């Protein structure tokens, strides 16, 4: 069976959920082989988890140069690996860096690329979701191998134990791979909450929350549900919540089991980022708010009453 390369995303020694989803998908296409691209020592702590989800091999392309330069070295390493192993497909997370790696790889290999893929069949037919979740597209790479970026939360990861061997990959970088130098990486505090794009529950606040201070009622409900906190653009533009948490067309795309929209009207650009959530709940004082058109359950009322009461009720039922 041919290998299916899965580019690993990790943070602080932990494999990101999208990688486990891709390994699950890869098992239906061939033999999953995980590819770690990063500083020396990145791969070792990830191997067990990757094996748990079926990685048969873990390719480790590790060097300080990969870590210190933006994107280009990762694409070069991956291109060399693709040429060496001729995989059946290459799966990369549909994140900013994932798409960038995929774009470069497409040029290097003169290979088509499909982004924001939610399904990939064994014959290479991909399903993409376009136009704010309103349109479903079936597409295919016609030149080269299936090179796709997979949207986080498109499928449920399921374990299937394997015991992977770790295979170091030597990488020869070109000077043009080292033009953009990363001088600093800054993590902005998100506390103990799950990552927005990976969370199974998201509670988002909009302009209706009315102040940065008042976002504490959103955070309180989120914490009781083990949820991530999101925000509309009106809320981030008004400085109520940091931009990194914006959901929508120009923010994050989320697809959780449950999305709770509080004081959000439901503009098309906001819907673009949350429309494919399994269950949608809305709290809004305006019974005509468009968000109710897609909500499975809606409460028409003042969020300042409804949300704290809901938090209180959850506490009571514990």
């Amino acid at each position, binding site marked *: 069976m041919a290998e299916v390369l899965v580019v690993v995303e990790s943070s602080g020694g932990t494999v990101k959920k999208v990688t486990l989803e891709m390994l699950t998908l890869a098992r239906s296409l061939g033999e999953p082989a995980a590819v770690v691209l990063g500083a020396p020592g990145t791969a070792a702590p990830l191997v067990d988890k990757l094996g748990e989800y079926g990685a048969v091999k873990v390719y480790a392309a590790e060097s300080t140069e990969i870590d210190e330069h*933006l994107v*280009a070295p990762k*694409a070069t390493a991956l291109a060399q690996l693709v040429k060496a192993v001729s995989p059946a497909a290459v799966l990369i997370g549909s*994140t*900013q860096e994932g*798409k*960038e*790696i995929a*774009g*470069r790889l*497409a*040029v290097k290999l*003169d290979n*088509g*690329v499909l*982004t924001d893929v939610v399904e990939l069949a064994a014959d290479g037919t991909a399903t993409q979701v*376009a*136009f*704010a979740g*309103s*349109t*479903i*597209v079936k*597409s*295919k790479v*016609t*030149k*080269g191998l299936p090179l796709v970026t997979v949207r986080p939360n498109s499928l449920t990861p399921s374990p299937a134990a394997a015991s992977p061997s770790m295979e170091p990959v030597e990488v020869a970088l070109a000077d*043009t791979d080292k*033009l953009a130098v*990363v001088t*600093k990486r*800054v*993590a*902005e505090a*998100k506390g103990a909450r799950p990552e927005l794009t990976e969370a199974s529950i998201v509670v988002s606040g909009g302009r209706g929350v009315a102040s940065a201070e008042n976002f504490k009622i959103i955070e309180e409900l989120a914490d009781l549900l083990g949820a991530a906190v999101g925000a509309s653009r009106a809320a981030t533009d008004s400085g109520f919540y940091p931009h*990194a948490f914006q959901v929508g067309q*120009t923010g994050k795309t989320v697809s959780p089991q*449950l999305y709770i929209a509080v004081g959000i009207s439901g503009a*098309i*650009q906001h819907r*673009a980022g949350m429309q494919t959530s399994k*269950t949608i*709940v809305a709290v809004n004082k305006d*019974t005509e708010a468009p968000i*109710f*058109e*897609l909500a*499975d*359950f809606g*409460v*028409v*009322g003042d969020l300042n*009453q*409804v949300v704290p*009461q*809901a*938090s209180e*009720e959850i506490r009571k*039922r514990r």
Partner: protein
Amino acid sequence: MKIVVLVKQVPDSGAERNLRADDNTVDRASANNVINEMDEYAIEEALRLQEAHGGEVTVLTMGPERAAESIRKALSMGPDGAVHVIDDALAGTDALGTSKVLAAAISELAPDLVISGAESTDARGQVMPHMLAERLGFAALTGARKLTVEGSQLTVERQTEEGYEVVTAATPAIVSVWDTINEPRYPSFKGIMAAKKKPVATKSLADLGVAADQVGWAGAATTVLSHSKRPARSAGQKVADSGEGGVALVDYLSSEKFV
């Protein structure tokens, strides 16, 4: 500094958008076609650099005839001129092909700096800047929320999942920007009048030395097999809060096993 700004025309993201039934391409005829929203921030950033450091700003667009409207609109914000790549053979071009064409046009303009949006609002590929950097051998500083220029040295703050990264490179480079980077100006009346007289050079594939079979349907490396509308979500239950709305909400959440 010589700056090229990439501007893509897209269907307005605030209205309903469709693909055509016949060839699966964007239905531009029924759409309100606008400058890709993120590209307005790219134009603004270029103009600010020009104001601070001098030089010249050129808009570059690949697109059909009606993209000319977006080019005039872009010019009304202040750039000096534009290049419009237009050719019937471009219909059906995918990202890989687009990058070939744009790279050829950029090579001809030989800029110090290319600024683009971080992504288009229609395809949302987020691939073009790195594809171009790969073809041109430029540095790519992408996803910027802040850009500073000192001589030929560029520094950006790149937005990431975790926070941000500081990334530096020398020109020639391509920088892509998010909407957090600035607040684009509105065209002034004077700007709109001036834009009518600004030079817009049209270029065909032959002018750029790109073979027609490398792009369009003929050269595409991807194909759309079919498309369909996702069934619209339907509204569910809606309750009015008369003092117990929060409790009703939790009742629902627990009936769905979330609590």
